[in-house]
């Protein structure tokens, strides 16, 4: 079935050339005379040798072995796979941005600093905070940054950072992981039967050792935490800081703001809510917005206004320090800035409204066919369980694979962990009703197949470049790099 099965190394032919470099125009260009012999490599790195055209056809063909938002509906829950506007790409490629060196003096990079500064201000307004740091490179790094800021805050105020961070059991894996790296013990808070965080359990855990509560709104079940004001209030009463994982901000734009909900710090995923592309895994950007009391602790340098100009403020003795070598994923900042300026306030609000509408539409159409373990009002995504299908011998994985054959990427599966056979569906606002209908039709067809012809699901996919892959083999006998085949005679 696999039409094309080459790696670039397998195209390599000694002597082929894919580059164009000038001849040396300086008198001495022999490395052996320029550098001590001890430092020189003895054998060249076994990189491939291909022509430019070899590479074009190879990577073009590989690209065609992928689904992307541009080609397929991509309802991957929690990931907000919305349309990535093409204009964003053009703007990020303007030479004044793309070819700007990070150590260019401030006076010669005012345009870039202004963009960072203004984007920070807009993001802060969107989440109702007092400021934002754009340095974190992704959501998880935003979390680490935010928790370290909280750590610095407690340390500064109380001389000790406290010990624990409370995280609901529905949280994304990065939440406990970031917390752990920040030196905290993670304490899991239960969800109530309705899927929201259990306030009693929360209250039980709140003590002087608790540095922070870290919570996702809407949570990973797609539910708005309706008692969030109470929760943040309870925390603050114990001097506990409240961190919001803003990965699901796409549900809230112009409707509600983390700052107004009582949060002290929130990270955003520009690669979810603000249309920067995911690139097959990254890069993203995870700005952190904060209330004023945390401002002393944000990463250095802070990009600040200085009259009509912008500058980098390095003199922040209580800062947590740096989390990136430079100033953050500026290329993503340009894209997000472009997007926000394209949408304006009414546009952003329409984004969230439509995201919520789309999720609820799918929910309504699929409700007869799939179990909905948490029945609260869905915001921007809906989490079904395939437990009914599981009883018919078909798992969430099987449903996902069958969707591929029917021309759709799969929802997130087995997340959140508190849902058995979870199918986490996030359509985003950029998808049309027609696409949602086609997807729902496919899901309904699958539910019926699970009853009538489950083997079709167990065999899926059959139209992809490969069939199901042996994960166990991959993990038991890791093969993590290409090696040339043994010469045969």
């Amino acid at each position: 079935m696999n039409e094309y099965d080459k790696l670039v190394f397998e195209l390599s032919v000694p002597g082929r050339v894919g580059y164009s470099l000038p001849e040396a125009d300086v008198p001495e260009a022999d490395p052996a005379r320029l550098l001590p012999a001890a430092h020189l490599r003895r054998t060249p790195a076994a990189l491939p040798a291909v022509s430019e055209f070899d590479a074009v056809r190879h990577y073009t063909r590989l690209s065609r072995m992928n689904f992307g938002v541009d080609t397929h509906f991509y309802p991957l829950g929690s990931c907000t796979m919305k349309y990535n506007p093409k204009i964003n790409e053009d703007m990020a490629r303007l030479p004044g941005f793309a070819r700007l060196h990070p150590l260019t003096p401030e006076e010669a990079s005012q345009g870039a600093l202004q963009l960072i500064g203004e984007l920070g201000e807009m993001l802060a307004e969107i989440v109702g905070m007092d400021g934002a740091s754009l340095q974190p490179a992704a959501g998880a790094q935003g979390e680490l940054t935010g928790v370290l800021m909280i750590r610095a805050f407690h340390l500064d105020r109380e001389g000790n950072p406290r010990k624990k961070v409370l995280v609901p059991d529905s949280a994304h894996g990065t939440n406990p992981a970031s917390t752990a790296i920040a030196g905290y013990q993670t304490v899991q808070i239960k969800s109530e039967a309705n899927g929201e965080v259990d306030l009693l359990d929360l209250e039980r855990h709140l003590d002087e050792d608790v540095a922070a509560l870290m919570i996702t709104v809407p949570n990973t079940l797609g539910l708005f935490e309706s008692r969030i004001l109470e929760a943040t209030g309870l925390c603050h009463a114990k001097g506990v800081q409240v961190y919001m994982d803003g990965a699901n901000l796409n549900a809230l734009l112009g409707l509600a703001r983390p700052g107004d909900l009582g949060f002290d710090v929130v990270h955003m995923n520009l690669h979810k809510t603000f249309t920067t592309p995911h690139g097959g895994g990254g890069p993203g950007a995870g700005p952190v917005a904060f209330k004023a009391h945390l401002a002393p602790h944000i990463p250095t340098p802070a990009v600040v206004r200085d009259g009509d100009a912008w500058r980098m403020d390095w003199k922040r003795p209580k800062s947590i320090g740096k989390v990136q070598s430079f100033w953050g994923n500026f290329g993503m900042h340009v894209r997000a800035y472009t997007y926000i300026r394209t949408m304006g306030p009414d546009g952003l609000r329409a984004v969230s409204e439509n995201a919520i509408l789309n999720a609820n539409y799918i929910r309504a159409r699929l409700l007869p066919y799939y179990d909905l373990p948490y029945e609260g009002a869905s915001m921007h995504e809906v989490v079904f369980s395939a437990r009914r299908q599981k009883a018919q011998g078909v798992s969430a994985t099987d449903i996902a694979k069958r969707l591929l054959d029917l021309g759709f990427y799969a929802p997130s599966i087995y997340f959140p962990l508190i849902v058995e056979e979870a199918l986490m569906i996030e359509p985003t606002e950029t998808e049309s009703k027609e696409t949602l209908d086609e997807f729902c039709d496919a899901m309904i067809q699958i539910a019926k197949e699970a009853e009538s012809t489950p083997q079709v699901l167990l065999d899926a996919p059959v139209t992809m470049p490969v069939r199901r892959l042996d994960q166990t083999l991959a993990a038991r006998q890791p093969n993590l790099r290409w090696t040339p085949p043994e010469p045969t005679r």
Partner: protein
Amino acid sequence: MRHGETMRYLSTTAAQRAEMLRTIGAEDIEALIDRIPSKARLDRELMIPAALAEADLVAHLRALAERNADAERYVTFLGGGAYDHYIPSMINHMLLRGEFFTAYTPYQPEASQGTLRTIYEYQTMICELTGMDVTNASVYDGGSALAEAALMAHSVTERGQIVASGALSPLARRVVETYCAGPRLPVKTVPWVDGVTDLDALRKAVTGKTACVLVQYPNFFGCLEDLDQVAAIAHERGALLVVSVDPVALALLRPPGSVGADIVVGEGQALGNHLNFGGPYLGLFSCRKELVRRMPGRLVGATVDLDGDRGFVLTLQTREQHIRREKATSNICTNVALVALAATIHMALLGKDGLPRAATLSTAKAHYAAEMLGRVPGVSLRFTAPYFKEFALRLPKNPGTVLRALRRRRILGGVALGQFDRRLKDSILVAVTERRTRAEIDAYAEALGSAVA
């Protein structure tokens, strides 16, 4: 809502909205969000600027971009961790393939073989350059890679001290310090002498409690450390050796794997990626195979499908946060896959001959530049240690003033070192890639002559 501006990224019309609400059984959108307590609702419009039409927005961004002294309109000798190397134009065309750049992390491998294969290629090529057994799919950037290496060494050795060379990038070192704050790992910095790590001081600093030694090659000043010695010092005390590298230089220089490095990290921007004012960049991360289960980040492995055909998957995921949560080897989730893809294509295009050639041209031109700039009266090389494509230059006048004068002649002359190290406030760091021409170097020397005169 005005015409077009805000609607072109939404597909649902008013009529469809009504129809969908009917299916849902809700009166209006408000009914869908009534779970949000009204006290928590925003009762006004966001105070951000109104939408701009595409053409107006382009004009605005173009104006912002033009206020920056970029490497297209200026001749640049800036380095210090980010470099203006040649980027074949073809790379961008591949990155713009929607199937690549609008895909997510390849969670469904059957529909993501394109991404998975490119990562596998990437892992292989970086292993070749670093001389290590295993490379992950990328971490954020060079700084966070170094920080992750320190944490990993801590977890592997179960020791609590980090020893850092004073000739590390000071920016990357600050990232290490940030990441080490949580687990409270003290980071001890060993001074440099004549542009390289003071080996005597290093020997004293490394103890039985040292988790790892962090060293950079070529180091922040462009100089070449004696890795054999550093390795011996680290390993003698059971510490791991972590080397932060410039992958372009490794096309020509001895791979750290061959001197016994345990972890090799680095900033990969120079491989086919633009300067982008500092990001997104590419965190390289390689290690010995014995350590793979302690490694942060994603790994792609080869396997077979039901028919026995070759295929690729994310593997060894039990290290990762989505499975191990607080016990994960790292919190990283989103990485920099597309940047790694650019690097992969770059390495494929330049390949076995081209990458060494780019490295050779860079070091040759750097040496020529050092010679020409060093001839300017009052100007001298700051260090005598061998260097690769970057060197520190001592100036007879305030570097800020000199660099400003050069900028007026459309030359970005280098990075003022005083901002990082007070002992170097009379010096600048000059980087030269294969992209600079002899004529540009000569013009720089001439302009520097006037600027310091």
